[in-house]
């Protein structure tokens, strides 16, 4: 009879409270876990170190400038050939 606890009562309430505390104390964002994420007035998406294809920031910048210049070059080529054929 005494082996199983009677349902309800103070112990269940305490258990529930504990579970609730635990749920609300696990962090729900990177910053509340102590890492460097979005803050109150700032939206940050990429602040952690994930393992992926590591790239130097300068490489990305040069690639982007290269991409922009290729689009410009296409425009220029189109304009020149357009002038020649027309």
């Amino acid at each position, binding site marked *: 009879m005494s082996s199983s606890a009677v349902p309800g009562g103070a112990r269940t309430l305490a258990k529930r409270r504990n579970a609730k505390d635990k*749920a609300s*104390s*696990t*962090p*729900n*964002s*990177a*910053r*509340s*876990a*102590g*890492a460097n*994420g*979005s*803050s*109150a*007035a*700032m*939206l*940050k*998406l*990429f*602040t*952690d*170190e*994930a*393992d*992926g*294809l*590591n*790239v*130097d*920031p300068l490489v*990305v*910048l040069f*690639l*982007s*400038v290269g*991409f*922009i210049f290729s*689009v*410009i070059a*296409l*425009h220029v*080529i*189109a*304009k020149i*050939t*357009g002038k020649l*054929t*027309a």
Partner: protein
Amino acid sequence: MPIINVPHHPSTSISSPTNQKYHTMAKFRLLDLVKPFQHGLPEIENPVSKAHLSFDDRMLYSIGIAIFFVFSQLPIYSVTSVNSDPFYQFRPLFAAERGTLDEFGLLPIITAGFFWQFLSGFRLINVNFNVKSDRGYFQSLQKLTAIFLGGVYAFALVFLTDYYNPTSKFAGAIDYNISSTTADAVVNVSSNIGEKFLIWFQLFVYNFLLTMIVEILDKDYGFTSGSLFLIGANVSVTFMTGVIDFTTIKTGKGYEYRGVFIQLFIIVKNAFGSLFSSSSKSNFFYEIVHLFNRSSLVNLKQVLFGVIAATLLFYLQAFHQAVPIKSKQIKTQAQSYPVKLFFNGALPIIFAYSVLFNLKIFSYVSYKFLNFTTLGSSLIAIVIAQFESSSSLVQSIIKLIVGEFSSDSFNPTFSKAYQTSGIASYFQAPTSFTGAILNPINTVVYSASLAGLIMFFALSWTKMSGSSGKDVADFFSKQNITILGKRDANVAHYFNKIINNACISGGLILAALAVIFDFLGCQGLPTALVVSILIIFNFLESFFTELQQSGGSSLYNTAFGGQDKLFGQ
């Protein structure tokens, strides 16, 4: 802003057995979806240490990226002309320039960020932020979504609508004259898949590179959040070119200066000229009214309200509630901990606008797809064939859900598309003050939804960004700080109250400003200016903190510091 470096509960750190159990649980997590992609996804290297990257380097990265971003808004190759613009309201805020590589600007990145951070914030997806690998997966998930969304938006706009008129062959037919009426440039839309793919490819690659650039700035190479920094830079440039720009453009009225002040100067000059000569006549008042209301370029109304908004924001952004705090260990004078009125900065408006922008894209694409493509109209035909008895009912239901767009009949280079029917049209900003009065349901629904979105954001964001009253109280108890005249147990409650009040009142002010500017027909520019001013104040805050921490070793510090720094040594 409190930066909490210690996890709340050491028992849940990486090595604990509970975590092992958590990891090997057979339950499928959404986060696992990203694992196969992670190793192929490019990842910007973190700076080796913060000391490794000097203040000057970070300055160079920020300025270089801002310049790159502004210059990269060039027209897409192989687009002859662009159809009337349905997204005009959101363009200034998201740096989305019509017909350029920046067609959606920062929308995919911001949408991806808000989407996943809200899902994890409300604990709808299972992420253990205490574990480093989980944070990595979460970041990769956001990045993947941003790149994917960019591709999806571009696909929808290029292949499902007739928004772009591509060239019929790769070279030659591109019309570079911005003022052309493009009547001869209309080509068969469905036939040129190759050109369409080229347009899609450019948009996709640009969005991919932009995501990486935002990552560079987010990762301590810049001073603040990457996406917000780019928004601030773009709005500043848009506004300044709208005020002072000497280039002329042919609009429906003839040649006009892009810069409002330049055009105003010309009008005044002409009016003075006509005073003294009998031959030339200038219609002064007509010109001024036109300058106030021109919809093709930035108009005087937008600039005036922008200046008013800027002045108001300069005044309001200093508002804060000072909480007196005191160390428990050392006897010092009480210091004050400020809780700002705009506690969430510009984020509430950006959130609300990003939701409305996504809604707009969805309704525009579905309208165009169902009405103007063979696939879409055959889909409708199939649905109608299913309910043969009530085809008109089906059609009106589709019309209600999808809505209709109609474009104004101005110069096609500048024409805009307005939603005229359907449920989603109620979430569209009224185009003018008279429009707001004549269509009260639209006015009420729009302002209520904008205010509701902003309130929703203000009330929930602090809890999911580690800046709620409880977090501040935890930080204080770790630093042995108390509020004067409060017991330790009450600190969290007290801060919760103050921060909630600040969020709600700050959010309501921003909502009111945005709604008022929309009702006056300002098409988003003053709202974007409000946002960018808040962003820039945030930026300056962290900028000057860094400047002081770099301790005068910076070139810029000597430049800003003036003569005593240069000659005092």
